[in-house]
């Protein structure tokens, strides 16, 4: 089944027509309502009427996460706050999150795109969808929630965590679709074994997994252990949240809801658009959003676009699984972590430059974050209890700022390897 056949199976020309019209309108709206972006356009010598069709998209300046931070919290909104009915936020450096706002229409758009993606994934209105993404400022939980309601399926809004109860309810309520991070899906599988429950005792048929990178091997593992079809969903709060793109049942790339979010692939170094099919950084222009429309927003995710028609019948362009990042962001259990955030937390606790190393592992099925901190003399105390207190303080500060738990180890000075004077900050041992 296809939720919105007119759009999802449109010809390339039809899609281009829709995109061009919406782009022209969005550029006007942003130019007149967002001083920061207007300045950027003026610096580039552009006025809104220079954008006459989709072909002019690459003339426009980029928007970055830094722009959102700079105009924290609501400076990039194009409507008055009275029009905003909800905000979401993602974690950010030193407590400054990236904030996005939604009008009533934006929430409807979001529900529509999530519904499309659920249908792509093979979800029907008679399904029971257990949403184990976190509910709250994070877009994962509420995003899938309203898309599921819009479809008419049954939502179990259980949010994240409480694994045994998740499994209990899956069994009792006859859950057919589970939505969570892929690493949590594997954790669920493990706990199920401990509880003596096998996938055959459950009704699961589909998993909607996203919010963190995962590999084809992990897909095989999840599908084998949970006996379901594991579908990859992609999204980021700046663009709308989950539902930007999603795999269909062919599992051959994620269809982008490109009538709302126009994708481009650029070279992250030269910032020039790349030819079709080339690997580069994914950039989105949102052309229907009212609260915080963004033009040429740099996702920092590296991928490539596939324009061929899919076996499912959809013509919506597909993106491959993300291959990495063009910045140093890590995704730990669905939470975005920048090494610079750790650095600023340590800097606040000491006068001099901290030396640290982040080690990311996947133990069992959960990401673990270990932080080695060199005990420079400004940190060193002769008393164990002071050192333990220091460790607790670092742990606490990181947990409260980033929202991820971390195992802090104090190590001797100069034990963290330095290469060419620059310390290596991150070791990611996860095999993705």
């Amino acid at each position, binding site marked *: 089944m296809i939720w919105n056949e007119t759009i999802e199976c449109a010809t390339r020309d039809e899609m281009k027509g829709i995109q061009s019209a919406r782009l022209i309108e969005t550029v006007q709206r942003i130019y007149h309502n967002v001083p920061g972006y207007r300045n950027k356009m003026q610096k580039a010598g552009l006025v809104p009427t220079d954008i006459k069709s989709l072909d002019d998209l690459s003339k426009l300046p980029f928007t970055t996460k830094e722009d959102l931070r700079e105009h924290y919290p609501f400076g990039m909104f194009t409507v008055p706050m009275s029009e905003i009915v909800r905000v979401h936020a993602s974690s950010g450096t030193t407590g400054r999150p990236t904030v996005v706002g939604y009008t009533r229409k934006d929430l409807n758009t979001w529900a529509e795109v999530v519904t499309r993606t659920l249908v792509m994934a093979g979800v029907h209105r008679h399904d029971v969808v257990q949403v184990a993404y976190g509910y709250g400022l994070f877009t994962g939980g509420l995003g899938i929630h309203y898309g599921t309601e819009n479809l008419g399926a049954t939502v179990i809004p259980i949010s994240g965590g409480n694994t045994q109860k998740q499994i209990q309810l899956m069994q009792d309520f006859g859950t057919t679709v589970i939505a969570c991070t892929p690493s949590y899906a594997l954790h669920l599988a493990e706990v199920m074994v401990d509880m003596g429950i096998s996938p055959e005792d459950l009704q699961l048929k589909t998993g909607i997994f996203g919010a963190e990178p995962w590999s084809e091997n992990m897909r095989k593992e999840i599908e084998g252990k949970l006996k379901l079809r594991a579908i990859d969903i992609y999204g980021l709060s700046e663009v709308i949240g989950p539902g930007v793109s999603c795999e269909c049942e062919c599992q051959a790339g994620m269809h982008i809801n490109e009538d709302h979010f126009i994708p481009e692939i650029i070279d992250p170094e030269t910032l020039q658009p790349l030819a079709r099919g080339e690997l580069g950084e994914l950039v989105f222009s949102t052309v229907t959003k009212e609260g915080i429309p963004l033009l040429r927003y740099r996702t920092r995710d590296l991928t490539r676009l596939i324009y061929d028609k899919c076996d499912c019948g959809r013509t919506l362009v597909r993106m491959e699984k993300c291959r990495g990042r063009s910045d140093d962001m890590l995704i730990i259990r669905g939470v975005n972590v920048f090494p610079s955030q750790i650095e600023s937390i340590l800097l606040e606790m000491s006068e001099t430059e901290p030396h640290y190393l982040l080690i990311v592992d996947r133990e069992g099925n959960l990401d673990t974050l270990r932080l080695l901190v060199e005990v420079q003399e400004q940190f060193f105390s002769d008393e164990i209890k002071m050192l333990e207190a220091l460790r607790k303080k670092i742990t606490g500060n990181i947990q409260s700022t980033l929202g991820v738990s971390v195992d802090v180890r104090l*190590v001797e000075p100069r034990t963290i390897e330095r290469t060419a004077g620059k310390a290596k900050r991150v070791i990611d041992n996860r095999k993705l």
Partner: protein
Amino acid sequence: MITKQVSVFLENKSGRLNEVTRIMGEAGINISAFSIADSSDFGVLRMIVPDPDKAVTILREHLFSVQITPVIIITSPNKPGSLSRLLNILSEDGIFIEYIYAFSMNENSAVIVIRPSDINRCLRALEERREELHSQNDQYII
């Protein structure tokens, strides 16, 4: 007397203590006394050496995190009850001990190293109650 104790941060890894003792040995610095306090993955080596400043300089050259900590060294009689008598005084005066370590020198005397929360108050208490300590002809050298 108050003396400078050298404290060194060590990871709980094999060979780390050996590294410090090797450096001290090569520098010709004798370690008169030491103790190690440890937690699950790190420890603090505390040692009494004849030339603490030199020890600190050399250890810093070898990139250790080092700290000089003032401690009180007391020579006490090496017989049952003498440590207790000393600690009674401190406890009665409400002096809190962060850590303490001791060793026997010979049949007659032992050395006690104390790191009190307030070093001057501790020293004053010991001075003021010297008479009590020295009863029964036992000699404490503070």
